[in-house]
């Protein structure tokens, strides 16, 4: 692909979450409304019961965009019916390395998220919603607050919204720098004024979440998909993406590509198209060495599997996940042990310290990797790394620990020779059989 391409040309027909990313002043309610903002909410309040809204979202099969891919409609259906305080909490903590799609959505089109919040709250009967946004996203938080103020003044939030019996207050809650707050129960702890450390489950948040009340927790992009679905219907939505992964996804592309950025594309695009067509290839035309499909957290995809469609199903065949679709490309110039060390330093820095295997294990991984990178490793270090991984994964309360082992396991699976070459005295071949 040659010449300058604009984001608009890349846009698929479909949910178009990023359609107005370059439109000026979308935070202004009148501007946003002239482009269809709150039409979905208006329609839902006039035509649908809450159960019908949940039904449409369930039928559309909106898979959770934060990474887990859990169907949003089903999640909503777990919330008990009837009176009693319920909450929606939007996870806008977005701290996974290489993930920056939620920030752009909130900065450029805050009303889209607010409308989605209102629709979800109407569906589950929640009268209070929190948008938990990471502390560093100051501009995005300001945009959301401005949008909420103007929506409230226009009776799109507040009491008896648009003359209905539906009441809703939305709070923007800013974090203060902690990756762990993206873990949903740590996020709840943070809002409750406690140290953000994950809770043990059960009870799940749908039963006892924020302040002990039933709580839906969804990612920004998941919620931002809802207004268009309500406006256009589930069948319209399912025409995009693949049959089992409907809709579009905002892919965050970073690392060794000429044109990093957010690309909203039909689910199922291949890594090759994403990197070479949209990212315009690797600087210096170097070869892709390996791809991290979901930030630091997910197992890696080797260069010979770039044709894998990036939907919710196909990456599983390679033992990995679509996750948050934050694709980090590493080219052939990268030293894998050094890059792995940098990834593990992240998890060690961000481990909240509650579970011993994660708190201590990530430190041990850092120590062993530093030793190897300094040329001071010993042959047993590679087995030590794998043993420590086994001591963390599945033995901790949240996914941070499980994520932390991915870079070590993946790098040893695909690039073990790079470690071996850095370890003095590593046996270069199978030892010869002792002669009898």
């Amino acid at each position, binding site marked *: 692909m040659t010449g300058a391409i604009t984001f608009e040309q890349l846009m698929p027909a479909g949910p178009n979450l990023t359609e107005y990313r370059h439109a000026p002043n979308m935070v202004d309610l009148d501007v946003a409304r002239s482009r269809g903002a709150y039409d979905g909410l208006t329609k839902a309040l006039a035509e649908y019961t809450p159960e019908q809204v949940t039904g449409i979202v369930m039928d559309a099969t909106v898979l959770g965009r934060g990474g887990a891919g859990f169907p949003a409609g089903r999640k909503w259906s777990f919330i008990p019916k009837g009176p009693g305080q319920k909450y929606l909490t939007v996870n806008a903590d*977005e*701290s*996974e*390395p*290489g*993930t*920056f799609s*939620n*920030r752009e959505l909130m900065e450029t089109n805050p009303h889209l998220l607010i409308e989605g919040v209102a629709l979800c709250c109407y569906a589950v009967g929640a009268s*209070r919603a929190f948008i938990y946004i*990471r*502390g*560093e*996203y*100051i*501009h995005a938080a300001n945009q959301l607050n401005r949008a909420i103020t103007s929506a409230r003044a226009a009776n799109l939030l507040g009491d008896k919204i648009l003359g209905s019996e539906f009441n809703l207050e939305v*709070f923007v*809650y*800013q*974090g*203060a*720098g*902690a*990756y762990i707050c993206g873990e949903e129960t740590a996020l709840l702890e*943070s*809002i*409750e*004024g*406690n*140290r*953000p450390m994950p809770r043990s489950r059960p009870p799940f948040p749908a039963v006892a979440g924020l*302040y002990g009340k039933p709580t839906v927790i969804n990612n920004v992009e998941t919620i931002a998909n809802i207004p268009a679905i309500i406006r256009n219907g589930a069948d319209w939505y399912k025409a995009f993406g693949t049959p089992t992964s409907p809709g579009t996804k905002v892919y*965050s592309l*970073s*690392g*060794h590509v*000429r044109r*990093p*950025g*957010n690309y909203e594309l039909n689910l199922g695009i291949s890594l090759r198209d994403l990197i070479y067509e949209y990212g315009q290839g690797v*600087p*210096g035309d170097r070869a892709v060495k390996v791809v*991290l499909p979901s*930030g*630091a957290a997910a197992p890696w995809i080797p260069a010979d599997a770039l044709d894998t469609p990036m939907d919710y199903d196909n990456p599983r065949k390679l033992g990995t996940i679509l996750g948050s679709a934050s694709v*980090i490309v*590493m080219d052939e110039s*990268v030293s894998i042990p050094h*890059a792995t060390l*940098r*990834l593990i*330093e*992240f998890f060690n*820095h*961000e481990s909240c310290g509650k579970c011993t295997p994660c708190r201590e294990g990530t430190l041990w991984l850092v120590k062993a990797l530093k030793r190897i990178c300094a040329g001071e490793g010993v042959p047993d270090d590679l087995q030590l790394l794998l043993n420590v991984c086994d001591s963390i994964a599945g033995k901790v309360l949240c996914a941070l620990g499980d994520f932390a082992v991915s870079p070590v396991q993946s790098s040893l699976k695909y690039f073990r020779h790079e470690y071996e070459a850095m370890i003095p005295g590593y046996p270069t071949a199978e030892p010869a059989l002792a002669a009898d």
Partner: protein
Amino acid sequence: MALEPETIAEIERIRAALPEARSALLPSLKAAQSERGWLPQETIKDVAEMLGLDPNPAYMLATFYTMLHTEPVGHYVLEVCRSLPCYLRGSDQVTEAIRGALQPDEHGNSVDGMFSLKIGECLGDCPHAPMMRVNDDFVGPLAAETIPETLEILRRRAAGGRVRGLMADPADGPPPNEGPLTFSNAIQSLPLARVRE
């Protein structure tokens, strides 16, 4: 060293806006931090007392979050992202250039108290890697060669605005009553890396 009237008013506003007092703790600590850029013990205690809460949970928050500082920091907190997307684009060289220019002490503070250098983990601006956070703003892509110039511009910029944190004596600079700093101009005028290939 009681809380300033503006801080008290802000905490009252936060408390009134949120459904539960304990939820007001984190935003109130952030509000109190804006007084001098960091949170002395006394301030943390005052915030907790204002909300009718025990000081211990407040200390637990202040010592957990990376954006809350329990030690003095400079006028500018520089958080250079070191996570993989920035690392692949040369963030280590940028950090080294800043370290070389500032010669920070073991807390990351420059001798003149203007800058505090902190480790940053992914700040969600990878298309502009390598980047850093300068107080409320994101700056990137950075280049090691232009770091001295970048720091000099920030230094000049601060001399015209409100001075806080480690800066010893505001009287050394122009009168500090020109209103709070607006960073947007400074940020736009910072030298950035040439557009990559």
